[in-house]
């Protein structure tokens, strides 16, 4: 069982991250617990500078973008190939800011 936390104040990229992690876990058959950390004080306790952040078993593994499916599979500790893997990191900001 992996304990996954997604850190983010509820922006579009944070929701996309939650969905992608859950999707990959399901596909690989890895059981996880998902916790969304949305309060800014709690997020800052992890020391990240950009959201969304991903914490696995208490350790920050990622921040600042929606992680790629390959990366997520790596964190979940499985070398299994993903069907149709390939969507890379989206570095852009999906939160409706100006350009």
């Amino acid at each position, binding site marked *: 069982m992996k304990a996954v936390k997604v850190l983010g104040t509820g922006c579009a990229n944070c929701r996309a991250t939650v969905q992608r992690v859950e999707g990959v876990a399901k596909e690989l058959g890895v059981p996880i617990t998902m916790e969304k950390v949305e309060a*800014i004080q709690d997020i800052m306790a992890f020391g990240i500078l950009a959201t969304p952040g991903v914490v696995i078993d208490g350790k920050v593994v990622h921040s600042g973008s929606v992680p790629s499916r390959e990366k997520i599979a790596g964190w979940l500790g499985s070398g299994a190939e993903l069907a149709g893997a390939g969507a890379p990191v989206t570095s852009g*900001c999906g939160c409706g*800011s100006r350009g």
Partner: protein
Amino acid sequence: MNADLTLTNQRPKLFLIVAAAVWFIAYQALIPVSESLTALLPVDRTSPLGGALQFFLYDTPKVLLLLAGVVFVMGMVNSYFTPERTRALLAGRAEGVGNFLAASLGVVTPFCSCSAVPLFIGFVQAGVPLGITFSFLIAAPMVNEVALALLLGLFGWKIALLYMVLGLAVAILSGWVIGRLHMEAYLEDWVKNMPRTRAVVGVDTVTLAERVQAGFAAVRAIVGRVWPYVIAGIAIGAAIHGYVPQDFMGSLMGKDVWWSVPVAVLIGVPMYSNAAGIIPIVEALLAKGAALGTVLAFMMSVIALSLPEMVILRKVLKIRLIATFAAVVAGGILLVGYVFNAVL
């Protein structure tokens, strides 16, 4: 696409050279193609409709192509400047030099307004002075790749460069002034009470192929999001070009109208439009007699000062500091507007 991906992964340098060549050829081919397309249309080129159509047909592909190119390059550049590295560069800097460095790094560090709060706290926590943090926070949204690409496409490189230099100047100066005012007391209490951290940077192991992928990801994310605004903006701009009489804006936004600069800033602040939609319209207004200083001030206030961002920052700043921030930046923008209208 698969062949593409193989090339980007295995020979990233070769791919970049080929991509640059293809982009350049496409850009060169644009004018003749749009000219011949407009010639095919059953409208008179000198009629308002013909003028508007030609503007639209030429400018839309040109701006989108420039946008894709600039966003791709910035996506790659961004991969060299992580927020963590920028923070380490700024921690403990003296004011002055620090403000200049912060504003410049604001241009190249990936920034998203939804990350403004964690970034702000992370900077202050690691000992980046308040004024220097503000220089970064003002420059990052103001001088962004979408605004630069649109200015480059619609106004030419001189105005694009001018906007960048003035945007940096406003960010450096505003941050410096806020630093001088010593307003650390107006951070929210929980921010002041957070434990100090040290700025550490992880080892960078990003390959060139991964940077190319980051460029593509940026194009997908940013161009994929803003293209409808670009097209809508150019369509409105085209209508203004075709149908609004020459010098119509002279009486409203001309350089002899002293109140036009503050009014432009006041209208600009609550507008949370992205640069993509606003710049084509502004370009058309300029062509109809609006003064450059007024137009620059309007663009800067739309892009750099926004109510939603202030609402987000309210979580970490007390009202008085937010008001000071808005007033100082607005003051800088006003100065830019007036100086330009006086000089040009």
